[in-house]
């Protein structure tokens, strides 16, 4: 189960104008024994609302340090706070490293890797590149790194250092959206067509064993299409997507009202798949059962309060959840309930399965 651990901030370094690298010292070091490419999920209270955000580790495994990169997102509460207020000595809470954006390492292998990073998508790739080049002496790594312009390139110097340290085994191709470069091909967006051109002269695509992609959605689609068109299988392509749609602020829960009681019947409005239907049902029947009895295609699986498939959010009214082995406290605080375990208390209840 997800558990949070305490960490202390031991260093905060600005890399570019709106991004910081934060070094952390966990109280329980064993809990943070990470694999390259993994991320940490943090939680913090902002004006009484808990926010959770995930940031990738940017250190190599052999560095013996836990570092993450945080780029400020417009309107993002957590990333703005980290960039403007976070200081050495501050305490943070994070879950143990998670994610599967990596492949197993083999020191005896002589594999060729290809990485694509868009903007702050470089963070997990930096961890992968550092770890792989150190752990696999025969490995070669090519990185295609897309940015708006020269001054938004995160870890630019660190990448140069890596090139010198692993002479001939590491190569970076910078693609800049706005700044002109000597070679036309290196200007613009990394699209499927751009990749196809890179594969013609700059990247030996036929001998690539594994490709890693971390960036915004359209970029990932274009690159994946190009890789597949050049013979890579799904098993050879590793993705990491942190959707740009992580909300900066949480909406306040609608206050409970209408607490009066009628003859053991409740009017329940279900929002499901974009439509809302209202039914009248017994308060002794769970929200899920009432929905199913009325031919609503509500999602469910275990019906035992364990799997969380039937999770929905109470927008109005009150329900009683008799068992909960799946939702965490912060979800319950936000009004989420397991509909298989929840029974109407008020005469009117509004629930939403779509959020």
């Amino acid at each position, binding site marked *: 189960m*997800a558990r949070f651990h305490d960490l202390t901030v031991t260093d905060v370094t600005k890399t570019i104008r709106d991004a910081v690298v934060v070094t952390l010292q966990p109280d329980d070091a064993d809990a943070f024994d990470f694999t390259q490419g993994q*991320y940490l999920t943090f939680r913090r209270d902002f004006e009484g609302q808990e926010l959770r955000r995930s940031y990738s580790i940017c250190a190599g495994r052999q560095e013996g340090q836990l570092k993450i990169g945080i780029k400020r997102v417009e309107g993002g509460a957590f990333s703005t706070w980290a960039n403007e207020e976070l200081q050495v000595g501050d305490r943070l809470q994070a879950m143990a490293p998670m*994610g599967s954006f990596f492949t197993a390492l083999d020191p005896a292998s002589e594999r060729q890797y290809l990485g694509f990073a868009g903007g702050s998508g470089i963070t997990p790739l930096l961890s992968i590149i550092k770890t792989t080049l150190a752990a696999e002496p025969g490995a070669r790594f090519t990185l295609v790194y897309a940015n708006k312009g020269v001054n938004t390139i995160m870890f630019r110097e660190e990448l140069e250092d890596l090139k010198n340290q692993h002479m001939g085994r590491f190569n970076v191709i910078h693609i800049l959206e706005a700044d002109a470069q000597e070679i036309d091909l290196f200007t613009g967006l990394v699209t499927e067509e751009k990749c196809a051109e890179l594969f013609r002269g700059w990247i030996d695509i036929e001998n690539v064993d594994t490709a890693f992609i971390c960036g915004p959605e359209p970029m*990932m689609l274009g690159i994946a299409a190009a890789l597949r068109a050049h013979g890579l299988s799904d098993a050879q392509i590793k993705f*990491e*997507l942190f959707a740009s*749609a992580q909300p900066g602020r949480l909406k306040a829960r609608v206050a409970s009202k209408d607490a009066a009681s009628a003859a053991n019947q409740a009017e329940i409005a279900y929002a499901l798949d974009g439509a809302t239907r209202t039914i009248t049902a017994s308060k002794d029947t769970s929200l899920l059962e009432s929905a199913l009895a009325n031919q609503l295609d509500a999602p469910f699986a275990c019906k035992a309060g*364990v*799997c969380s498939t039937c999770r929905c959010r109470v927008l109005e009214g009150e329900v009683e959840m008799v068992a909960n082995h799946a939702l965490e406290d912060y979800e319950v605080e936000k009004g989420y309930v397991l509909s298989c375990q929840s029974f109407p208390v008020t005469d009117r209840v509004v629930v939403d399965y779509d*959020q």
Partner: protein
Amino acid sequence: MDMRIEDYLAQGGVLSNPTNVPPRYRAELMKLMTSFVDSELAGAAGFADIINQGPGIRERIAAARIVLEKTDHAARVLQVMESFGVDADRYANHHPWTARLDRDADIGAARGDHDMRLAVFNYPLEGWADAVVMNLLMGCAVTVQMSDFQKLSYQPLAEVFRAIAPVEARHGELAEEGLARLMGEGAGEAILASVSYWWPRVAASFGQAGSLRFEAMRAMGLCHTNNQTLRAQWETEAMAALGRVGIQPA
């Protein structure tokens, strides 16, 4: 630059961790995973009771191995569910996985009230030969289903399915070997009866043709081939497997 996650998925995009899955996607993914885990656990539990009925030590080893590996496969998918907050230990013990209905219960494709196992796993096995037949037919079905599962858009789960697909395929081969031996011993008639018992029940596990959910699932990249195509594929492969051991079902 900004793209809706639904559009990204509809265009073949891949999701990589629990933080970026939309609610409906999460629900369907959980449903798919619970159905798989429950079927594997129920299948393994049912088969465990049959191990000692194996006619020889080789058969018992094969059966024990299938039980072990199916349980392991459930554990691997459960691990993905864990990353969504499921309590895996509690989950694995929340239901008596050996529970079965009557052999004659007619439940079609309906699932039980307590878990999400495929309907076919609610029927009891009747002895060794019956178990081998069920395992062969279901083994073919799993192989067909796995070919689709390996393409699904949640990468951590697709990777688990890619890793376990060859092992699941081997279970079907073990069943075929077992069946060949039983045929050699003249158990043809009992086997034929088992085939006609299990055939419609395994077929029903592919779901109904023209299911409305299919389009929604396909838009999310959670399935790629429709029920009737998968079932037709299974029919061809199951017929071929039966043919190889000399069984011609009516």
